[in-house]
């Protein structure tokens, strides 16, 4: 067998899984770093990196843990949702909007959190941003430990005095922990406040005990008592044409708290 034919035979016997013609000029693999080892290293590196990403994601998504400054999530989405929409105190949107939606919510209430995360974005984008609706938020506390909820309500009210209540609320619910587990700490509120552009978190923390903040919390408690009596249930909504008498929204199922269900009820209420 000649040299030329031996080379041809060797090409055919190459342990190549794919085969195919061999163009000239390709670099030869080094002795140790065979293609199989290269692939093994690449996949191993990939799995380590993917594992690290998943680990960071899992660590940042623990619902019962207390979010630290490093694990506050949803900042970009919250800021995008409310960017350019006017707000004052506990009112979001154009004060002259033809319709009004009033929300009564408890900071620890899981359904309030679900509504804020899943349905609020749709309401803000399709109704508030378009000028059709304004939202009035009333925070109330009745879930134990109520001192935790009151701590949050103070921060909401104080953020309202800086026209950032709805960003703080939204971010708060995106990072909501399990009710009754004592997750609403000053550290958490400060971290959330620090994540809202334009909100002075130190001032917010100090203003929680201000007369204005206390007044808003008391006003919300009075409004809730007028609507619900002594049996608080959250979230509770009222809606209707602005300036008229607002009626309770007949929401009785979880589906009606979702974007499509809520929209159907809201459309009916504000068109009356």
């Amino acid at each position, binding site marked *: 067998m000649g040299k030329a034919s031996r080379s041809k035979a*060797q090409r055919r016997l190459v342990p190549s899984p794919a085969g195919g013609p*061999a163009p000239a000029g390709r670099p030869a693999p080094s002795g140790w770093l065979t*293609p199989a080892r290269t692939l093994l290293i690449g996949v191993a590196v990939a799995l380590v990196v993917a*594992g690290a990403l998943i680990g960071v994601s899992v660590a940042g998504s623990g619902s019962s843990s207390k979010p630290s400054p490093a694990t506050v999530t949803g900042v970009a989405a919250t800021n*995008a949702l409310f960017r350019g929409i006017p707000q004052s105190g506990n009112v979001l949107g154009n004060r002259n909007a033809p319709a009004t939606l009033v929300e009564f919510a408890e900071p620890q209430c899981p359904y309030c959190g679900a509504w804020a995360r899943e349905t609020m974005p749709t309401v803000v984008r399709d109704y508030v941003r378009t000028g059709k609706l304004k939202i009035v938020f009333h925070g109330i506390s009745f879930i134990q430990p109520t001192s935790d909820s009151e701590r949050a309500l103070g921060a909401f009210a104080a953020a309202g005095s800086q026209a950032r209540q709805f960003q703080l609320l939204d971010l708060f619910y995106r990072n909501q922990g399990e009710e009754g587990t004592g997750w609403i700490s000053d550290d958490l509120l400060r971290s959330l406040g620090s994540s809202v552009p334009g909100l002075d978190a130190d001032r917010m923390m100090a203003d929680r005990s201000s007369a204005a903040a206390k007044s808003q919390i008391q006003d919300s408690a009075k409004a809730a008592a007028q609507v619900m009596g002594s049996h608080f249930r959250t979230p509770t909504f009222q809606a209707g044409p602005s300036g008229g008498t607002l009626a309770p929204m007949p929401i009785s199922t979880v589906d009606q708290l979702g974007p499509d269900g809520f929209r159907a009820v809201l459309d009916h209420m504000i068109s009356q």
Partner: protein
Amino acid sequence: MSVGRLRAAIAMLSLLGAGIAAYLVYTRYSGASLFCQTGGCETVQNSKYSEVAGIPVAVLGLIGYAVIFVTAAFPGPTSAALGVTLAVIGVAFSAYLLYAQLVLIDAICQWCVANDVVITLVALACLWRFRRENAYSVATASGR
């Protein structure tokens, strides 16, 4: 399929994946409504799983597809190996996010599922390309 065609396929698929990721990044930062037929896009997009250490996963995806596109532009086993590594990272993390949608969030985002399909195709094409690139190299070395 030739290495050239595989590289072209990887480049095209990367552009498709980057397009999906770019759309999700745009809606996230602009506040625009997300076109959604599955009903769960908003839920997924606003969930805790849509960010890693404060960085939206769509941004990570956009960067990943861009780098895979660049690896497709350069010939050779090293570029192919880098492409495989990035694609496997993408597949593994996408599998985790699919699990999160199905089990933890209980909502499905069509854009995420579309991305899952694209990144899987990219990974298969990258693996195929890696084998062909190294087949050439081994064959050339053996034939010397």
